[in-house]
């Protein structure tokens, strides 16, 4: 018995460094994406695109005739605190539907609890741009941010997100396809089990994700007031600014 105890302890001690080596490879920072920043009307605004949320397969599915949903979540953080609480949060949700008879896309977008904006897009590119571009997207009231601070914006975009409950169910169904013949008492956990080999497709909480962090920044100076509109000879108004 003494021999087996010594063996056990030796293996335990030997395994420690192996695990430590594995953990050391785990950390990976989010990619940085240059993000437009502005202060307007007391609001911190960002402008950045998430068009890469759509790959070739996702663009193809866009014409399925059924809706495609996009959820973009934005968090403002103090850049000097490595993993602090978000200072502000904002959300944009969009939905795209392709009309198979009219061959055009309908897009609707809401920012937080704001009003719903609808548009018609003749091409997939325009529909994706309308649904995924954050253009002068308000994320925080500047009066609530300490002056002189440095910040970063964390952005996460999800394509067709699914609820947490549904995600759990799908994972369980795929891992335990033989649920009809489960036997209790066999220990439905992987403690002590060595292996279970099967085609195990990756199931995420959305079909595709894009995550990035903005460049660190200090609060930009407020945008100057808009210049007076040029007066045309005919007296007609100028064109609308892009939304």
């Amino acid at each position, binding site marked *: *018995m*003494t021999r*087996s*105890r010594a*063996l*056990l*302890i030796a293996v*335990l001690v030997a*395994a*420690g460094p192996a*695990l*430590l080596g594995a*953990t050391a*490879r*785990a*950390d990976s920072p*989010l990619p940085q994406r240059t993000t437009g920043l502005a202060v307007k009307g007391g609001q911190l605004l960002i402008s950045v695109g998430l068009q890469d949320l759509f790959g070739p397969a996702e663009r193809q*599915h866009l014409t*399925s*005739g059924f*809706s495609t949903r996009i959820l973009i*979540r934005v*968090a403002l953080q103090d850049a000097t605190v490595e*993993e602090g*609480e978000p200072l502000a*949060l904002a959300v944009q*949700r969009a939905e795209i*539907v392709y*009309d*198979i*008879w009219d061959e055009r896309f*309908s897009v609707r977008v*809401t920012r937080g609890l704001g009003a719903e904006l609808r548009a018609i897009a003749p091409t997939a590119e325009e529909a994706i741009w309308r649904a995924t571009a954050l253009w002068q997207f308000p994320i925080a009231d500047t009066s609530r941010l300490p002056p002189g601070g440095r910040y970063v914006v964390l952005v*996460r975009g999800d394509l*067709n997100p*699914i609820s*947490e409950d549904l995600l*759990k169910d799908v*994972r*369980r169904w*795929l891992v*335990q*396809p033989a649920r*009809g*013949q*489960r036997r*209790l008492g066999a220990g*439905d*956990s*992987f*403690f002590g*089990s060595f*292996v279970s*080999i*099967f*085609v*195990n*497709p990756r199931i*995420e909480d959305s079909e595709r994700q894009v*995550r990035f962090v903005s460049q660190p920044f200090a609060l930009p100076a407020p945008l100057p007031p808009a210049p007076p509109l040029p007066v045309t000879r005919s007296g007609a108004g100028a064109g609308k600014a892009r939304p």
Partner: protein
Amino acid sequence: MAAPRAPAILLLSVIVSAGLLRASAARADEEPPPREDVEEAAAAAVAFPDQRFGPRYVIDEVLVKGNSKTERSIIVAEAAALGLVQGAAVDASDPRVEAVRYRLLALGYFLDVRLSVTRGASRGGVVLVVEVEERGTLVINELFPSTSAATAFWGGTDISETNFLGRGINLGGGFVGSTTPVVAGAHAGLGLRLRAAVPPIGGPYGLSLAVTGLYNDGSEFYRVSGADDDPDPKNFIATRVKRAGGIVGVGKDFRSRVHLRLDFREEALKAQLPTSPSMMPVDFMIKDGSSRVGSVTASAEFDTRSDPILPRSGMRVALALEAASGLVGSSYDYVKTTIEGAFYRPMPRGHALGFHLFVGGIAGDAPYFDRFFIGDLNLLLPRRALGINFSTLPSRNLLDTSIAHHRYDQYAARALVEYAIPIWRRRGFIYGGDAFIGVGLLGVASPGDFIPPGESGLRSLPIDLTGDLGLRLDTYVGIFTISIANALSRTSF
């Protein structure tokens, strides 16, 4: 190394390893910071006031593509279960479309499922196209390659085909074979299992029927000499027991994450019992010659774990009650109750704390293979393969108690605490990996031997430490556990 110091050293090693793991993996979780409030904010803010968006269609026809193996009728039935049938109206943003997609994924036969529409005969009419990408449905449930002082080699596997003939039938089987153990009177072991289960009738929440056939021809080992902690096979004699029979069961999943089962079991037994070479009486825990086991088992399971492989929250509780009686043709009358629980709690930085509990008791006279075996409870010992034991190794006795005396018992309990640290997430071939450490206490007993003569205090209690340390990997080709307990239990001398 003095034996009494070993438990302390083991505990110290475990604690130090856990501390180092925690420190080194502090930044392992690549989720953006505190997300709970982000999720809540998102959930509150993202819903459109008007769920309906886009045109409304009328389904002219349902077309299935990509199903080279799976019967079309199985796929169409899942869509029909939610009303997506010929003549039905469906909105472009209808939530039933996504629900059908996940119902089909839930069958376990497909890697991906896509629903789309194409123009029908007239404006407004559409062909609903269900395109599936079939997955491999062969599952290797377990591998049994091991060796011990008593049995030079035993090996085998357990495999299932979850979509047999494309009809959703789950057909599985397992086998294990061994060399002849070096125990007096022992025979080479052979275990066979054949299982079949039909898909739940009426969809995922219908009744599921399953049948299992079993055949075992193996030996069990009984000590006739030597100290309790001496695993030398020369100290043991062996029986030869043949088992043939099967289980017929019916089960049902509920939306509330509850699963209920009822199983009927019948087995014919034939035991050849040896004569003890010493005056030491041996309880073989089985009747000599022919006998039968017949039982009814009712079981319930409640599972809310966030993930079946790498859980971070939720729980799994399972209760089973098996009654064997002459009323169902059994030569053995007993009632066996087991309760299992696993509770997970999320910790900072994506870590998880788990508590695993097991309690079981048998009232009556159960055959040895239905009693609680020390190797099934202690992670550091060889488990039985398809119900056959191939080792004479006693419990490790890390607390220097009376545990070494115990092999098959009528009462058992185990409590484990597990701490898991994420190592990988979303990295190509390996989706996720956790380093885990588990430490716990187990105890077994039978009536009359709680306090052996001449013993008192801790030494008299049939308890032991158990634990494990290793990596659990969730990969594209399945789940792998690389751990100390796995290594020790498969090369146990």
